[in-house]
C-alpha cells in the first residue's frame, strides 16, 4: 500500500520530481560525460601508442646516424629497442599536398597500425603505407600509384596499405598549425630498401647530369652507403637526463634528445587528457553540487508538506523505520532514475565530444574510439545514490521527532526575526512588496541560497562558455588574421631534412666538411635564400633549436622589412622587434623566471657553443620560442639558416627553385584552425545549453516551492483585493532581484572561471582572456531571460489559487 503512496507522492509533487531527476541527470551526465572523455582518450591513445610502440626518446642529429651508432644505443643499459628513423616533408606529384615520408629501419619502435591492405614489408621496393585519413580525404585507395618528390629525389610506387601511427597521432606539418588537415597533409611510410633504391637512383641521375661522381673522385656509389637517418627512436625506461647522458657518452657527441613529452603527438594528446580532467572536475562539481543541494532543499520541503501524513501514519501505528524507508525510497527512486538518465546523458556528452566523425576525430588519428567510464565514476554514482538516500532519511526523521501527536502537527516554518536593517529609514520607506520579498528570502534562506546558487551557476557557465569563444576569436584574429600578414609561406629546405643530393653525397661519402667549409656553405645558402626573399618581395625567418632550462626551445630569427610578419606583445598589441635583445614568449618567461632586462645563455643543440643574450621584451607566440631580429643574431653571432620566406605572391607566381621545400598558404593555416574552433564550439554549445537548462530547472523547481510555501499568503493578498497581475509581479520581482544579485556575483566568478579554464585548457597557446561586450550582454540577458520566463511560468499559477480552500488551512 505504501508503495502505491510512493508513486502517488511522486505524481503529486511532479514538478519537484522532474526537477530533481533532471538536476541529478544533468549533474551525473556532465560528470560522467566529461570524465568519460578524458578517460576514453587516455585509453584509446594508450592503445595506439602501445600498438605502434611509441618511442620514449628521439635522438636527433643533423649529421645523421650510422648503423654502428644504432648498435651503440641498443647496447645501453635500460634501452629495450631502437630504430633509425627518417621523416621528410615531400610534395605529392601533381599536387601541392605534403606527405611526411617516413622510413623506419627495423620497426621495433614507432611501428604501424594497419587499417587496410598488405602488412608492412621492410623489403618492399615500391610500397607506400599511407595514412588512411589522408587516403580517405584524397580518394586514394590500396593499389593506387603514388609519387612524391623531395628536392630532386623521386619516390614512386604503389599504395600497399593504409595505416595509422602513434608518431603521427596528431599529424601536423609544423607548429603554426594547431589542427591536422588531411586534405593537404598526411604521412606515408616506405621501406628502407625503397629509400636506398630511390636515393641511389637520384644520385645516379644527378651524377649523369652534372658528372657529380667523377668530380667527387668516386667511381660508384653503393646503395648500402646511402642509408641516411637523422633520428634514432628509442624505447627505454631511463629518465631523460640519464638517457641523454648515456646516449651522448655512447656516441661521443652532443645531440638533441627529445622525450615523448616533447613530441606534439604525445604532449598534445596528454594535454587533451589533462584538459578533460580539468573540465571533468570544474563543471560536474558545479552541477553535482547544485543538484544535491537542490535535492536536500526539495526533499526537506516535500517531507515538511507531508508532515501531517507522516504523523497520520505514525498515529496509525506504522513504525518510524517503515515510514523512513518509505520516504527514503522516494528519494532513492528519484536518484536512481536520475542516475540512469545521467549515464545516458553522460554517454551522449562523451560521444558528442569524442567521436571519430567529429572535431576530435580530425584532431586525433586513432584506430579505436571506444568510450569508457572511469572506475571511480561508479563509486561516485554509488555515493550520490547513498547520499540521496541519506537526504531522504534525514528529511523524514526530522518530521518524525517526538510523539505521534507532535508528528501530526503541521510543519511550522521558522519564526520571523527582526533585523538590524529594519531600524533604518531606508528600510521603512520600502514598499510592501519589497519588504514581503526581502523577509521571505530571509525566512527561507536555503531556498533563496539555492536560487542564487542556480543563477550564479548559470551566469558562470554563460560567461565562461561565451568568453571562451571570445578569447578564441581574439586569438585567431590576432595570431592568424593579424600576425600572419602574408599570403604564402615558402619553406626553405635547408634544415636537417633538407640536404639536397649533392650535399648528402658529399657530406656522407666524403665525411663531414671542415668548419670553414660549412660556414662558407651556410653563408652561400643564406645569400641565396635572401636573394629568393627579395625576388618574392618577402620577409624571412630562420630557426635553430637551443637548450634552455633542460629542454629544447625554438629560437626564431626574423628579418622583417616588408611587414609580412607581425608580433604580439603581452597585451596582444602589435609591436615591432628591436635590435637590442631577444624577445621571450610568456611561457619561457614564466618557466625560467625571466623578465625584461635579464640576460640568458643560449646553447644551440649539437654544439658546445654558448651565447649570452639580453631579454628585450616579452611576446605572445604560438610555439614556445625565443624571437630576435637577424641584426641582433648577427651581433651576438648565433648561427642560423633561413627556413621560411613570407610573401604575398600567389603560389603559382613563385618561381621553381630547388631550395623550396614546400609552400603553405595563409588560408590553409587558418582553415586548419577551423577544426580547433569547431572543437571549442562544441564545448561552448554544451556549456550554454547546460547553463540554460540548469537555470530553468533550478529556478523552476525553487519557484514552484516558493509558490507552494507562499500559497496561503498569496491567497490572503488575493482576498484582500490584490489583483493576479500584482501578485505575479511580486513573485517575479523576487526572482529578478535574486537574478540581479546572482548576475553581479556570477559575472566576476565567471571571469575567474574563464581565466582558470584558459590557464588549464589552453596554456600552450598563450591566449589572453578576452570577454566582448556582447558576451556580457548575452550572458546577462540570457540569465535574466531564463529568470523571467521561469518567473512568468510560476506567476501564471497564482490565477488558479483557490482562496477559500487556501485560507481554511492552518499555518
Amino acid at each position: 500500500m505504501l508503495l502505491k503512496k510512493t508513486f502517488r507522492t511522486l505524481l503529486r509533487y511532479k514538478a519537484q520530481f522532474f526537477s530533481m531527476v533532471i538536476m541529478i541527470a544533468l549533474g551525473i551526465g556532465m560528470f560522467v560525460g566529461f570524465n568519460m572523455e578524458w578517460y576514453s582518450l587516455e585509453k584509446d591513445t594508450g592503445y595506439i601508442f602501445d600498438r605502434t610502440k611509441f618511442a620514449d626518446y628521439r635522438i636527433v642529429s643533423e649529421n645523421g646516424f650510422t648503423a654502428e651508432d644504432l648498435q651503440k644505443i641498443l647496447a645501453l643499459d635500460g634501452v629495450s629497442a631502437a630504430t633509425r628513423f627518417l621523416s621528410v616533408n615531400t610534395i605529392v606529384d601533381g599536387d601541392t599536398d605534403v606527405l611526411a615520408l617516413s622510413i623506419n629501419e627495423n620497426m621495433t619502435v614507432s611501428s604501424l597500425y594497419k587499417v587496410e591492405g598488405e602488412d608492412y614489408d621492410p623489403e618492399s621496393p615500391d610500397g607506400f603505407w599511407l595514412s588512411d585519413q589522408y587516403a580517405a580525404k584524397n580518394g586514394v585507395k590500396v593499389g593506387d600509384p603514388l609519387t612524391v618528390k623531395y628536392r630532386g629525389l623521386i619516390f614512386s610506387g604503389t599504395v600497399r596499405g593504409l595505416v595509422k601511427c602513434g608518431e603521427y597521432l596528431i599529424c601536423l606539418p609544423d607548429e603554426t598549425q594547431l589542427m591536422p588537415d588531411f586534405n593537404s597533409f598526411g604521412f606515408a611510410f616506405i621501406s628502407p630498401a625503397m629509400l636506398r633504391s630511390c636515393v641511389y637512383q637520384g644520385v645516379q641521375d644527378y651524377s649523369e647530369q652534372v658528372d657529380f661522381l667523377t668530380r667527387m673522385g668516386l667511381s660508384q656509389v653503393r646503395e648500402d652507403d646511402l642509408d641516411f637517418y637523422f633520428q634514432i627512436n628509442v624505447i627505454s625506461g631511463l629518465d631523460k637526463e640519464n638517457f641523454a647522458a648515456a646516449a651522448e657518452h655512447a656516441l661521443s657527441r652532443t645531440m638533441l634528445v627529445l622525450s615523448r613529452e616533447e613530441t606534439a603527438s604525445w604532449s598534445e594528446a596528454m594535454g587533451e587528457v589533462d584538459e578533460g580532467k580539468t573540465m571533468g572536475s570544474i563543471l560536474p562539481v558545479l552541477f553535482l553540487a547544485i543538484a544535491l543541494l537542490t535535492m536536500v532543499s526539495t526533499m526537506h520541503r516535500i517531507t515538511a508538506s507531508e508532515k501531517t501524513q507522516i504523523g497520520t501514519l505514525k498515529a496509525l501505528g506504522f513504525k518510524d523505520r517503515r515510514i523512513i524507508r518509505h520516504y527514503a525510497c522516494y528519494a532513492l527512486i528519484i536518484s536512481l532514475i536520475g542516475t540512469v538518465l545521467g549515464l545516458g546523458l553522460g554517454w551522449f556528452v562523451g560521444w558528442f565530444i569524442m567521436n571519430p566523425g567529429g572535431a576530435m576525430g580530425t584532431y586525433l588519428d586513432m584506430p579505436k574510439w571506444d568510450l569508457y567510464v572511469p572506475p571511480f565514476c561508479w563509486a561516485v554514482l554509488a555515493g550520490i545514490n547513498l547520499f540521496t538516500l541519506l537526504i531522504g532519511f534525514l528529511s523524514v526523521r526530522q518530521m518524525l521527532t517526538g510523539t505521534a501527536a507532535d508528528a501530526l502537527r503541521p510543519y511550522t516554518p521558522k519564526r520571523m526575526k527582526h533585523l538590524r536593517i529594519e531600524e533604518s529609514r531606508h528600510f521603512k520607506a520600502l514598499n510592501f512588496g519589497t519588504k514581503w520579498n526581502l523577509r521571505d528570502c530571509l525566512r527561507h534562506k536555503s531556498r533563496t541560497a539555492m536560487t542564487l546558487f542556480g543563477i550564479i551557476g548559470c551566469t558562470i557557465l554563460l560567461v565562461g562558455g561565451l568568453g571562451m569563444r571570445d578569447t578564441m576569436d581574439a586569438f585567431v584574429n590576432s595570431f592568424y588574421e593579424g600576425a600572419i600578414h602574408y599570403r604564402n609561406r615558402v619553406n626553405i629546405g635547408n634544415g636537417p631534412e633538407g640536404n639536397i643530393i649533392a650535399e648528402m653525397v658529399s657530406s656522407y661519402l666524403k665525411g663531414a666538411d671542415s668548419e670553414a667549409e660549412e660556414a662558407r656553405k651556410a653563408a652561400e645558402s643564406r645569400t641565396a635564400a635572401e636573394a629568393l626573399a627579395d625576388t618574392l618581395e618577402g620577409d624571412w625567418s630562420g630557426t635553430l633549436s637551443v637548450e634552455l632550462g633542460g629542454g629544447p626551445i625554438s629560437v626564431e630569427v626574423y628579418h622583417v622589412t616588408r611587414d609580412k610578419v607581425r608580433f604580439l606583445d603581452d597585451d596582444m598589441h602589435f609591436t615591432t622587434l628591436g635590435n637590442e635583445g631577444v624577445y621571450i614568449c610568456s611561457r619561457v618567461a614564466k618557466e625560467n623566471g625571466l623578465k625584461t632586462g635579464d640576460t640568458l645563455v643560449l646553447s644551440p643543440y649539437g654544439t658546445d657553443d654558448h651565447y649570452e643574450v639580453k631579454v628585450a621584451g616579452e611576446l605572445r607566440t604560438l610555439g614556445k620560442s625565443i624571437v630576435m631580429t637577424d641584426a641582433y643574431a648577427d651581433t651576438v653571432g648565433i648561427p642560423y639558416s633561413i627556413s621560411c620566406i613570407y610573401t604575398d605572391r600567389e603560389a603559382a607566381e613563385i618561381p621553381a627553385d630547388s631550395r623550396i621545400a614546400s609552400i603553405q598558404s595563409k588560408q590553409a593555416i587558418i582553415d586548419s584552425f577551423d577544426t580547433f574552433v569547431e572543437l571549442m564550439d562544441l564545448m561552448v554549445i554544451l556549456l550554454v545549453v547546460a547553463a540554460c537548462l540548469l537555470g530553468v530547472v533550478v529556478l523552476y523547481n525553487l519557484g514552484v516551492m516558493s509558490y507552494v510555501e507562499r500559497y496561503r499568503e498569496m491567497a490572503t493578498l488575493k482576498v484582500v483585493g490584490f489583483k493576479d497581475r500584482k501578485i505575479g509581479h511580486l513573485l517575479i520581482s523576487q526572482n529578478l532581484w535574486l537574478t540581479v544579485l546572482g548576475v553581479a556575483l556570477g559575472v566576476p566568478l565567471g571571469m575567474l572561471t574563464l581565466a582558470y579554464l584558459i590557464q588549464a585548457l589552453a596554456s600552450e597557446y598563450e591566449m589572453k582572456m578576452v570577454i566582448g561586450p556582447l558576451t556580457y550582454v548575452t550572458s546577462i540577458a540570457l540569465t535574466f531571460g531564463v529568470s523571467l520566463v521561469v518567473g512568468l511560468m510560476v506567476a501564471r499559477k497564482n490565477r488558479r489559487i483557490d482562496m477559500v480552500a487556501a485560507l481554511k488551512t492552518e499555518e
Partner: protein
Amino acid sequence: MNIVEFKDVSRVYRNGEHEQKALDHVNLQLEESKFIVILGPSGAGKSTLLNLLGGLDSPTGGTITVNGKDISTLTANELAAYRAATVGFVFQSYNLIPTLTVIENVALVKEIAPDPLSSHDMLAAVGLSDHIHQFPSELSGGEQQRVSIARALAKNPKILLCDEPTGALDSETGVMVLKLLLSMARDMGKTIIIVTHNQNIAKMADVVVRVKNGHIQACEEQQKPLSVEEVDW
C-alpha cells in the same frame, strides 16, 4: 436600504458526474449598517454564501447585487477591485502575512484600497499601538485577530465579512474580540456580516439569517438584540 441582494442564487459544485448544491435558488436582502449573523450547522452553505458575497467565488446561477452593483458576472480583476474597495474580511485563522510586521500587515491595504484609513489609527483602535513592529508569530491568537480586524477596517469597506471570527479563540478572548469588532464597525457605520454556528452570537445580531441544506430557512429581524455583556457566554 438594501446593501446586499441575492436573487435566485445557486452555487453548484461539480465533481465528475456528481453535483453538490451548496446554495439552491437563494433569495436574500440585507440592509445597510446592520449587524447580520448567518447561522447554520456545518455544511449548511453559510460559508458559501459569505464567499459569494465577498467575491471569493462566483455563483453558478442568479445575481448578487452589492451596493447597487451586480457582482455575479464580474471578471477576476473586477472581483479583485471589488474586494479591495467594498468588503473587508476577518477569518477564523487570521490569515496575516507572517513575513510582515503588524503595522505592515495593516498598511499593505494602502496598496490597493481606494480610500484607506490610517494604519496607526486602526491599530490604536484595536489596542495594539505597542505591538506595531512585532511579527504575527510574536502575538497571541486574540492579538492576531485584532490585527486582522484592523486590516479589514483599514480598507474602509462598506461591508465587513467575518467567517467564524472567534472560532480559534478561547471564550474570554472571543468575547473581547467580538466586542471590539462590533463597537468599531458600528462606530464606523459598517455593515457587519458574521458567519457562525454559535447561537450566542446570533443573540446580538440585528438580523439573523438561518441557513440549512443550501436554503435560507429564515431571515429574522431582532427587535431587541442583546449586548455582548448580556449574552451568557
